[in-house]
């Protein structure tokens, strides 16, 4: 039976299904920056007066679940694959911050390509700091190919 993308979107988007706290340390900020090839002192040197996270730092953190409970699996053949990430930076992340990540399914949409029908599921993690300021949005784009009819 073909997947009803509009129904999926209506049923599963827009509600929080996971919430996790992450205390941020200077060591992990510097380590992540070096791992992605950064050398600027404000990203790799904790003694720098403007020391902070590289823009994609929040992608380091994962919630406890990728999907809401009972989220349907669209394929018997595979669980799907990573379709890339998108990061929006809103405020600097610094050592000592405690980030709260709230997860929701932000969007679900279909498209067709050479290999057939694809369904894109956007899992959005919204990171806010201990002052309640929005620090970053991370969209995990996950792709599933429904089984043929």
């Amino acid at each position, binding site marked *: 039976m073909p997947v009803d*993308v509009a129904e999926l979107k209506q049923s599963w988007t827009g509600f929080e299904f996971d919430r996790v706290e992450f205390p941020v340390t200077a060591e992990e900020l510097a380590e992540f920056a070096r791992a992605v090839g950064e050398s600027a002192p404000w990203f790799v040197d904790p003694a720098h007066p403007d020391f902070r996270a590289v823009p994609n730092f929040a992608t380091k953190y994962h919630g406890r679940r990728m999907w809401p409970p009972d989220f349907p699996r669209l394929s018997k053949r595979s669980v799907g694959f990573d379709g890339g990430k998108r990061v929006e930076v809103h405020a600097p992340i610094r050592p000592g911050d405690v980030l709260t990540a709230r997860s929701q399914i932000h969007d679900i*949409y*279909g*498209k*067709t*390509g*050479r*290999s*057939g*029908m694809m369904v*894109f599921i956007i899992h959005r993690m919204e990171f806010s700091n201990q002052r309640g300021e929005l620090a970053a949005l991370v969209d995990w784009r996950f792709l599933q190919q429904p089984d043929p009819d």
Partner: protein
Amino acid sequence: MILDLHNHSVRSDDGKARVENYCQWIRRRGLAVDGFVLSEHRQFDAESDYRPLEDEFGLLILKASEVETDYGHVLVFGVNEDLQAALDFARVDLPLADVLRESERCGALAVPCHPGRPNVGLFAHYAARGPVPGVRLVETLNGGSRSGENELAGREAERYGYAGIGGSDAHIVSHIGRCATRFEETIRSAEGLVAALRAGRYEAIACPSTSPS
């Protein structure tokens, strides 16, 4: 006048190129195109205003759409409010017959793109379900085609008597200008483009310096 009739900007979910960067690339590389069309996936971008970029770079920038139908992907030129009200551009299963009919009714023009491509090309569906009345032209040169796809498109277009247009299907900056369409007349607007395509005085061209692999 040469226009690249099929490109995507960051407004498309898989587009990586900003429109300004397309303009810069065309000018820095001295590409032989006078303008290009942005055909964003499953939507019509009614908001963006590219007139400042047109003035700065001396290029014509027009907006269209690439919709998804039961016979593959289709470029729609001359999209207007009437057509937006008539079709749900976000759907991936629009009936091609509806897209053709409503485009005609609203003064737009629907052109199946990359018709030689598996699954999302018109001729893959013709093989199984036969031709669709109302198709008059197709994109015979697509810059994103794999080996054999444009050749199949050209052969089948000739067989069915369809005219052919060219477009790069660029999603990244360096792919613009790979394929284009040469018009006998000067085009200044989306309506003018539709009129020129209806008139039939054009040819699809693969740009020699940036031809597709």
